[in-house]
Structures are given as structure tokens and as C-alpha cells.
């Protein structure tokens, strides 16, 4: 058995594909009971693996093809356009000066460029966007049915009154005050709709996890049992301090 197949055997086997995802899921879920060492171990394994995974992959698909390879090609055959890579590398490397308090200004060259670049690109686009959003409101009132027409009327006047609430720093009295109040209600409906949708989103995140747990019933029950026993023992004998409740009171 050579070295490579040993590594393969460690990480590609039935235990790893059936037990580890379930244990990982339940380790993180133990946080729902209380902050505990199992959760912290899981958290740190996750952070480490996430960073390691990202860097290794980025090395393969970003650093190598966009920086290392053009650089080595340069020694084989040199083009004048290759200088752009060196130029950009030097300019971007000035970002490192941000770590030094006295020399931080060197990084200004890169940041100044990036921000100017963003500004030049964004201004025309954003102006177009505002025009698009406002011109799309200028349509025929009659949409055929009461349902569609009522939608359109609410849309136009709702946008107008919500803008009233936002933009005028004049005291909200009289007609302005009343429009602004309608604006608040409109905003509240938006937040309500967003909240309703968010509930669905959050719940579906856990549905995905539950599908995993249900697919491995034996593994889930055994791991859950072990984790529960650990939590009981840990909080009974090792960690006796009381916990803050939801209102932050001991």
C-alpha cells in the first residue's frame, strides 16, 4: 500500500460519507441548547477547512493561471503587453502598506485608482437605473381589470408617499405629514412581505439539513444520543455557571 492510497482510504470510505456529515450537523446544532465545547470544536474545524479549501482552490484556478503562468511564459518569450501584469502586481502590492501605520499612504495609489474606477463606471449606470424605475411608472392607468389597475394606482402613489417620508427634512405636518404617514405604512408592508418571505427562506435552510438526518436515521440517533449525554455530563459536572437568558439577565 503506497502513500497515496492510504490518504484515499482515510478520506473516502463509508464511515466518512455516512457518519461525518451527520455528526457535523448535530455538533453545530448543539449550540441551540447552549454554547459548548463541541460547538466550538466544530466551528474551528469549519473555519480551518473553509480557509484551506478556498486558498488551495484559488491557487489552482486563480493564482496559477493568471499570475504564475504568464510570469513563467515571460521568460520563454517576452511581449511588451506582459508588462501590464508586472505593473498591476506592483500597484496592487502597495495594499500591503496598509499594515504599516506610517507608510499607509503608499496604498493610496491603488485605492485612489479603484475608487475612481468604480465612480466612473457607476454614475451613468445609476442614472439610467433611476430613469428606468421612474419611467416604468408612467403608464396607462387602465389596465383592463380592477385587480391590475388597483395594483398600478397603489404602486404609483405608494412610491410617491414613501419618497415623501424619506426625502423631506421639513417637519411632517399637514399634507406632507399625512402623505409621509402613508409612506410609513407602505414601508411597513414592504418589511412585512420581506419578513414573511424570510421565514420561508430560513426554514428551508433547515429542511435541507433535516433531509440529511432523515436519510441516515441510525447514524443520527446514535450521534444525537452521544451528544446529549456529553451535554448533560458537561453542564452537570464541569461547567456549572448559569447562562444569560434572552433578555440578558442571569
Amino acid at each position, binding site marked *: 500500500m503506497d502513500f497515496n492510497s492510504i490518504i484515499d482510504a482515510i478520506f473516502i470510505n463509508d464511515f466518512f460519507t455516512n457518519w461525518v456529515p451527520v455528526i457535523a450537523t448535530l455538533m453545530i446544532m448543539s449550540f441551540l441548547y447552549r454554547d459548548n465545547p463541541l460547538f466550538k470544536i466544530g466551528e474551528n474545524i469549519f473555519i480551518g477547512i473553509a480557509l484551506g479549501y478556498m486558498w488551495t482552490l*484559488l491557487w489552482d*484556478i486563480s493564482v496559477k493561471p493568471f499570475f504564475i503562468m504568464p510570469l513563467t511564459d515571460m521568460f520563454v518569450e517576452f511581449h511588451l503587453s506582459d508588462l501590464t501584469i508586472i505593473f498591476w502586481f506592483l500597484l496592487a502590492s502597495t495594499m500591503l502598506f496598509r499594515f504599516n501605520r506610517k507608510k499607509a499612504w503608499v496604498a493610496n495609489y491603488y485605492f485612489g485608482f479603484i475608487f475612481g474606477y468604480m465612480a466612473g463606471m457607476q454614475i451613468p449606470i445609476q442614472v439610467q437605473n433611476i430613469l428606468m*424605475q421612474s419611467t416604468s411608472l408612467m403608464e396607462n392607468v387602465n389596465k383592463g381589470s380592477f385587480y391590475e389597475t388597483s395594483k398600478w394606482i397603489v404602486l404609483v402613489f405608494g412610491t410617491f408617499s414613501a419618497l415623501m417620508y424619506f426625502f423631506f427634512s421639513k417637519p411632517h405636518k399637514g399634507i406632507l405629514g399625512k402623505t409621509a404617514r402613508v409612506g410609513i405604512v407602505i414601508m411597513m408592508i414592504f418589511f412585512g412581505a420581506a419578513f414573511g418571505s424570510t421565514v*420561508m427562506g430560513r426554514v428551508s435552510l433547515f*429542511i435541507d439539513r433535516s*433531509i440529511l438526518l432523515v436519510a441516515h436515521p441510525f447514524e443520527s440517533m446514535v450521534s444525537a444520543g452521544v451528544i446529549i449525554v456529553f451535554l448533560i455530563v458537561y453542564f452537570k459536572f464541569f461547567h456549572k455557571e448559569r447562562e444569560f437568558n434572552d433578555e440578558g439577565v442571569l
Partner: protein
Amino acid sequence: MKILEKLKDLDRRIIYLLVFLSIIIPLIPGFDFLKFPVSASKETKAIFDQIENLKEGDAVHIDFAFTPTQKAELLPFFEAFYKHCLKKKVKVFIYYAASVNGMGLGKETVKNIMNMDEFSHLKAGVDYIHMDYIPIMANIQIFSMVSDYKGTFKKEGKIFEGVETLEDIDFILGITGSGWHQPFIDMQIRFHYKFAMAVTAVIGPELIPYYQTGQLTGLSNGLRGAAEYEKLVSEKYEVNYYGSATKGLSSLTLSHLVVFGFVLIGNIVYFIERKRGGK
């Protein structure tokens, strides 16, 4: 009243436990008692119709821009949409722009779908292609795409025949849970491509204005949107493409009922207390 006090200081773990049970019980085989038919919303139907109107050999660009975090809501949609594209025999370009972490997930999913019997004759580089991560901002990608769609990516593959610039792409789908596609939406005014999105439910309502202005030609909202799409494709082609989204609908219903229950109890407790305080 003792119950009132208890309800007021309800231990959060009881709420957690009820939510947990409400999600997991409908998923256990045999307990799926909350199954109701699902009807497609007009936004999801719009995506489906546009793919239906494509001809064989047209090009579809999928921007796979989510991490495993949002896998629950978006991966079912990706699967259903991708299968639909393969059924329609269009060329699919899958682009992993926003996240390196999503790349492994996307490639594995595509690999599993290609292993299915009905699609096993399709080849990478001819019928579909993975275009790897490029660390540039999407807006620049769009600008570059206008000048040369090939130039920014690996040039290999027969699939690039006839696809030179952005105008040769007939449909773009962005799948995301973040604001990554805002530049795509903004640029739509300038380049008039057909761009639809599948998003997580959290940002779904925020994108409705863009659907109304026509900057988005379709919008699928969260797990529900994915379930709708699964149903649309399955019914049209008379195949079983029902996946985890349809499976999760009963859990969605029961857990929402639990949330309703908690909101209701919370309000009742609040009103009783306010009445007492007023006396």
C-alpha cells in the same frame, strides 16, 4: 395567572424544539400528511416559458453564484432548470463567478445529472461546459463579454462555435443569494439581454420592482419557486423530476403553522398584559 407568566418567559429551547419537530416530522416516510398541490406563480412560469420558446442549439448561460450556505433553496432550482435545458437540447454554459466554494458543489451536481441514463450521451465541451471562476467583478465580465465572450474564458470546446459575443447568448440565468447580480440587472438597460434570476426567499421581494420594469424576465423565489419549477418541468415532459424542493413543501407548511401559532400566542399574551396594565 400562572400560565401567562410562563408563556411570557417561555424558554427559547421549547420554541426550538417545536420548530425542529415541525420540520423533521413531515420528512419521515409515512408522516407526509400535509401534501397539497402547488401552483406556479407568474414569475416562475415566465422563466419556464422562455426556455420553452428556445430552439435547439440556442445558448443558455447559467451564473452559478451561490455557496453551500444557500444550497437548500437554490440547488433544487438549478437541478430542475439544468435538466429542462438538457431536455430542450440547448447549449449550457455554467459559469462559477461569485464563489469558489460553490464550484465543487455545482460540478458534482452536474456530474450526477449527466450520469442519469437519459443524459449520459451528452458531452462536456459540446452540449455543456463549465467555465471556471475568474476573480473579476461581474460588471467587467459583462463589458468583456460584449467584446469577446470567448476571450475571457478557456477557448476549448466545440460549444463556442457560433457564440462570439454577448448577443449570441439567448438567455442568462443568475442563481444567487446575494447582491452579486445587481450589475447584471443594471446593465440590462444597456445591452437588452434576457436575464432571469433564481434567488433565496430573503431577497425575493426586493427584486420585484426589477421584474416589473422588465430588467428581469423571470424570478424564482426560494424553495417554493424551485418546487414550482420541478412541477412545471415534470408535468410538461411527463418525467419524475420532483426533488428535494417538492419533498420539503410539507415541512414548510407545518413549520409555518408553528410560527403562526407563536405569533398568535405572543400577541394574545401581549394584549392581555396591556389590558391589565391599563387598569
